[in-house]
């Protein structure tokens, strides 16, 4: 893998791994389900420490895009580069180990485990997971890390409740805490505010902003107001292809984007 070499060679650019190098880039990403082309030749890149909103009507391919990035689906063609390395076709666990985490559009947690255990098992995936003879509670570092992750999303008071007994909004937040516990470089949030009340949505947005300090975030979000406030740039998907990309203001003015949203 010739990691950063081509980029470093281009004039006026700093050393490899510099912030100017996009953290994530896809080239010609395409996936077909039988006759349906769910992603069509997607060229996409996101810079380090950017918050990028991904929008588009239902069925546009946003979740499918996340599924390709995280290894759940294998693209039919095209490439995914993360930190300069080709990660196309790697299984989800390898991609997670490289630093991409995600939350799910449909809540996906361990319902019969406590809130803390949901986060602890995620934190443990980086360290000590092959230990067979020590009690899991002996690893204070993991527990402290998990408690910190819960604290950062405001769920610490519910640490010992069963995840199944949390409210819908709390479960959505737990999704984010689980993803954070794996200490990712890139966090993909798939409609984190789905089904949340207005107040919960507002809280979640504050949360996303607070965790974004050292993190790159891709977020699928339908509320345009929220998108405008949060994201530096917006990418619009339509029928599996990138329809437009730009600053929130540019996207709001974009003629073809308005057409799509007025039709929908």
């Amino acid at each position: 893998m010739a990691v950063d070499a081509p980029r470093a060679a281009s004039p006026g650019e700093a050393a490899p791994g510099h912030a100017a190098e996009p953290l994530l880039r896809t080239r010609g990403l395409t996936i077909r389900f039988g006759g349906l082309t769910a992603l069509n030749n997607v060229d996409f890149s996101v810079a380090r420490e950017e918050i990028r909103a991904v929008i588009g009507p239902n069925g546009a391919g946003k979740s499918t895009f996340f599924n390709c990035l995280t290894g759940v689906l294998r693209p039919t063609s095209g490439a995914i580069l993360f930190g300069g390395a080709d990660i196309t076709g790697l299984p989800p666990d390898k991609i997670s180990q490289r630093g991409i985490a995600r939350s799910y559009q449909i809540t996906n947690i361990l319902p019969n485990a406590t809130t803390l255990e949901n986060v602890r098992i995620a934190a443990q995936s980086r360290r000590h997971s092959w230990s067979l003879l020590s009690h899991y509670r002996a690893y204070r570092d993991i527990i402290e890390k998990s408690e910190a992750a819960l604290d950062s999303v405001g769920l610490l008071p519910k640490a010992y409740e069963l995840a199944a007994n949390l409210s819908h909004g709390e479960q959505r937040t737990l999704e984010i805490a689980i993803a954070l516990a794996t200490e990712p470089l890139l966090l993909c949030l798939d409609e984190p505010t789905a089904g949340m009340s207005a107040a919960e949505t507002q809280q979640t947005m504050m949360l996303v902003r607070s965790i974004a300090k050292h993190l790159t975030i891709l977020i699928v979000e339908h509320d345009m107001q929220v998108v405008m406030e949060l994201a530096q740039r917006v990418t619009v998907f339509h029928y599996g292809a990138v329809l437009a990309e730009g600053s929130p203001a540019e996207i709001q003015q974009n003629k073809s984007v308005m057409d799509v949203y007025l039709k929908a």
Partner: protein
Amino acid sequence: MSRRRFFVYWVGFAVIVALLAVAPLVLPEFWRRFLTEILIWGLLAMSSDILIGYTGMVSFGHSAFFGLGMYGAAAALLGSSPPNLWLALLYGLASAAAVAAFVAYFSTRLRDIYFAITTLIFSQIFYVVIFTSTAWTGGENGLNFSRPRFAIPYLFSLRFTPAVLHWFVLAIVALSYLLLRRITHSPFGMVLQSIRENEARTRAIGYAVERYKIVAVMLSGVFAGLAGVLYALQNQFAAPDFVFFVVSGEVVIYNVVGGIGTLVGPVVGAAFFLLLREAFSRFFTEFYLIPLGVIFIAIVIFMPRGLLGFARRWLNG
């Protein structure tokens, strides 16, 4: 665990082990032997709980691991003179581990019923191989051998009287239980339970799920093999019947009856099932399977968490 529960747990454990230790001194020979066998079948059922209860994989092939432990021990006891206990353990565990590694490698790629069927098929293949390799295994007739002495060079050497054998089995089963319990509470054990709860999610947070499953099957297989070695020591024979899939099915029944995901439950299930079978076969002769089946169905319907889960709920009011 709270202080109080911790205390109650260890007192309970000590009392039960003490009762089981005293039993051969007071029980008549038939029931002494019966109790030793319950412990051995209990260990086999416990080993399978690592897969059924903790990882969410139902194995219908535990007879293969049990049988390989048995035949491995047989080979060591027939091949060494005087027969050596430690060699029997070594051969038995190594054979079970090798077979478990083989089965694990292929079967863990499949899930749910496909996993169960694959383990079943593998165990039947081993059954056929053992049945037909007459020169090595004695085929249909199996192998007979004599018991080794319970000896550690320069320290002691005891004859395996029925009582000594019972204590030996009890010690191994109790230690296996403590070890397996620790493993189920280890970081590795927590990963297995996460796989059971949500396999895709476990993979997504960075676990190479297949590797954990392979190790789980091997771990389970080695303890099943240990039960096979103990059975060989107790009965002084190895026979293909014990590799047959019916044995695997009974192991699953012990788990379901006793309560999966508890380690102790499967032992309780084995005791319950074997005692009932003994009683019913006296009263109902060859029709004993009918009342046994009725009771089994009743337990599945009315105590879905098994006897232990039911007792626990009842005790907690």
